[in-house]
């Protein structure tokens, strides 16, 4: 009998220790005392070395605070973060995205940084224009401090443009309209080559046996089209929503938008761009690297990747000038947010302020991977790219010329994408007419009437 009781006690002890492993952890530091260890998450592996250096410098200046950095790929990042909010083990500070923070803010997961900005005298005019305000919620709370920004440009295979007799100057002065596609479409057609070596603008071009597509295709771009079509729709005067940020009505039923998408989808029919069904698999950039496409439209965060393909020299041109006589590019600004549930708000705020300071952003700039939010650091980044032999003026021109359009910040963004993804896919694959996007638009707008 004694043995039996002992066994039960042992089993109970195991059970208790098992159930205990979920809770516990570090002892919380009292608020106001800036010390201890804090967790910081980001998704871009290219930027990890820069931020590791920032963290080391930060700890040198604040020996009581240690920063533990975790990098996760984009796909896992957001679900892990949400699970962390619920489980109570989300990172104290994390890199945040404009399409994601409205939901975090609505669920009260973000620490309001207004107080810190006031108390510590953070100057908001050091950042590129508009970047700081993107992170102010509908309730006036400040949900993050600017980290970096990106715009969109054309990456092109210089060996292919040279062979086609297209100069860098021509690439930099393309124009576009939704009717005949302008010189942008002519260039794309000329750069498309079929198996027999016939170019897309020559008679006898076999659109079903294309060796090199003039333009690469990433995907249909769902409801935002950041790198896919927003740089075209933006030149027509079209905007995603009635107002930005915090629009409550989307404009996918507008003829300007639908004409643009129709023109774009038409490229695939002409054999100038791969069909949508062929894009499930290797990334658009890797297909470029394999010499399957001459031009790719992509974001400035991809400069490193496009420059690294062996045997391929990528030139960068600004996006084409549209019907209203100007270029356009989506302007996306990332920020670092503090989790409202952090056990160590004082240290977290200190770290987020450091991330948003020139001390850290200059370090990031020196690596030449992204454009930091601070104006002076941005310039340093451009110089760092230049030192690597990469001309990034195609991306910075949008900022200096004021041709940026803001990333649409709305509630329900995940649901909008859930509806617009399949709707855009259907149009791009030629299954449905661009006019059907009006039906999708009704469903999207119904989300905001609840």
């Amino acid at each position, binding site marked *: 009998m004694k043995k*039996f009781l002992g*066994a*039960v006690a042992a*089993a109970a002890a*195991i*059970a208790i220790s*098992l*159930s205990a492993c979920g809770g516990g952890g570090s002892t919380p530091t009292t608020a106001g005392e800036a010390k201890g260890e804090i967790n910081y998450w980001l998704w871009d592996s290219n930027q990890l070395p820069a931020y590791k250096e920032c963290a080391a410098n930060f700890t040198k200046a604040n020996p009581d605070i240690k920063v533990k950095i975790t990098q996760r790929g984009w796909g896992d990042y957001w*679900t892990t973060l*949400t699970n962390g*909010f*619920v489980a109570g083990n989300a990172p104290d500070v994390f890199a945040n995205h404009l399409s994601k923070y409205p*939901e975090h803010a609505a*669920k*009260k*997961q973000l620490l309001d940084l207004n107080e810190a900005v006031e108390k510590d005298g953070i100057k908001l005019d050091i950042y590129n224009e508009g970047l700081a305000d993107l992170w102010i919620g509908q309730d006036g709370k400040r949900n993050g401090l600017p980290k970096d920004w990106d715009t969109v440009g054309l990456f092109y295979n210089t060996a292919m443009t040279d062979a086609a007799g297209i100069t860098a100057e021509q690439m930099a002065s393309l124009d576009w309209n939704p009717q005949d596609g302008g010189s942008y479409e002519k260039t794309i057609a000329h750069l498309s080559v079929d198996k027999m070596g016939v170019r897309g603008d020559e008679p006898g071009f076999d659109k*079903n046996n294309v060796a090199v597509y003039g333009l690469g295709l990433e995907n249909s771009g769902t409801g935002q089209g950041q790198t896919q079509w927003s740089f075209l729709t933006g030149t027509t005067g079209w905007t995603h929503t009635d107002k930005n940020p915090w629009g409550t009505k989307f404009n996918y039923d507008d003829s300007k938008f639908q004409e643009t998408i129709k023109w774009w989808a038409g490229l695939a029919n002409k054999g100038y761009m*791969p*069909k*949508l*069904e*062929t*894009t*499930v*698999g*290797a990334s658009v950039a*890797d*297909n470029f690297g*394999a010499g*399957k496409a001459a031009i790719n439209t992509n974001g400035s965060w991809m400069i490193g990747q496009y420059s690294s393909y062996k045997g391929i020299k990528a030139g960068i041109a600004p996006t084409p000038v549209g019907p209203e006589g100007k270029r356009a590019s989506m302007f996306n600004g990332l920020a670092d947010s503090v989790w409202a549930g952090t056990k160590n708000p004082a240290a977290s705020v200190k770290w987020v302020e450091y991330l948003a300071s020139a001390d850290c952003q200059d370090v990031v700039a020196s690596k030449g991977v992204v454009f930091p939010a601070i104006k002076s650091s941005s310039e340093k980044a451009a110089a760092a790219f230049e030192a690597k032999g990469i001309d990034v003026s195609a991306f910075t021109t949008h900022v200096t010329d004021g041709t940026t359009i803001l990333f649409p910040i709305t509630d329900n963004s*995940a*649901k909008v994408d*859930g509806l617009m*993804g*399949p709707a855009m*896919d*259907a149009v791009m*694959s030629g*299954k449905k007419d661009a006019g059907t996007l009006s039906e999708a638009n009704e469903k999207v707008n119904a989300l905001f009437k609840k």
Partner: protein
Amino acid sequence: MMTTLTKHPPAAAHKAPQRPGRGRRMAKLRDVRIALLFILPAMIGLVAFCLVPTIRGVYLSFTEYSILGEPEWIGVDNYTAIFQDELFWNAMAVTLQYVGINIGLQTVIALGLALLMHRVAKSTFVRGALLLPFFVANVVVALLWFWMLDYQLGIVNEIISWLGLPRIAFFGSEQWAIPTIAFVNVWKHMGYTALLIFAGLQAIPHHVYEVASLDGASHTRTFWSITMPLLRPVLALVMVVSVIGSFQVFDTVSITTGGGPINATRVIQMYIYQKAFGESDFGYASALSVILFVILALVAFIQMKFLKGNESDLD
């Protein structure tokens, strides 16, 4: 597996000689206690990881719940919405298509492999090699095929193109996506399924075959009249387990198509995942899960009943 066909359950061998009244009851009580002690660890797991989440899932299916914040009771609203949800019916149709192709191919191929293992391939090496794909992680298998079947850069399409045939968008075209995903999973699981059936084949006593050959039965006749009927309990179990697994396909879809093109591969588990973790609609996703649970329970019940999986013709 083997025990389903054993004529004499091992427990019978341990039956102790009859003891008089009181002592017997005491012994039985002690047996129960010890049994409980052994069951306890499994019980903790079952309650903590299956029972409690299931009950909570059923509760959540009647609520609107965005995971942050409290669930809000809305009655059967989720269920009425689901029955009007085109994407749900699409998901069911896609899932059924997948299950049909997956189970059909897998069972036939596995049965063939099992017969080969039983009759021809007697080396342990060959038998082991058949199991290899099963040992590779699902995600790795999915990624491997995703790359090999890529439209522009995949080796399979390079070969197809070299043969002068048009390239195929295996994962990108609406017609090919589900058959391709089904094929990948057949490739992974056929060895394991074959092993289960092989075990069933070994349990068929040799003398029935001898009698059949004495009676001059052909190989085909022997297969349909001896092997298949005697293999039925094992096949039934294999079918139940693999159909349930097949209905729950998720990882291969998530790694490759993510539900696209358009809605062509949005299987029910993928839809549940997107609703819950993509759109934070955990109440709706729970209701979808409950429906899937009911469907699976029904399917398993019908299969067991129909295929009489719990009795053997050897008795």
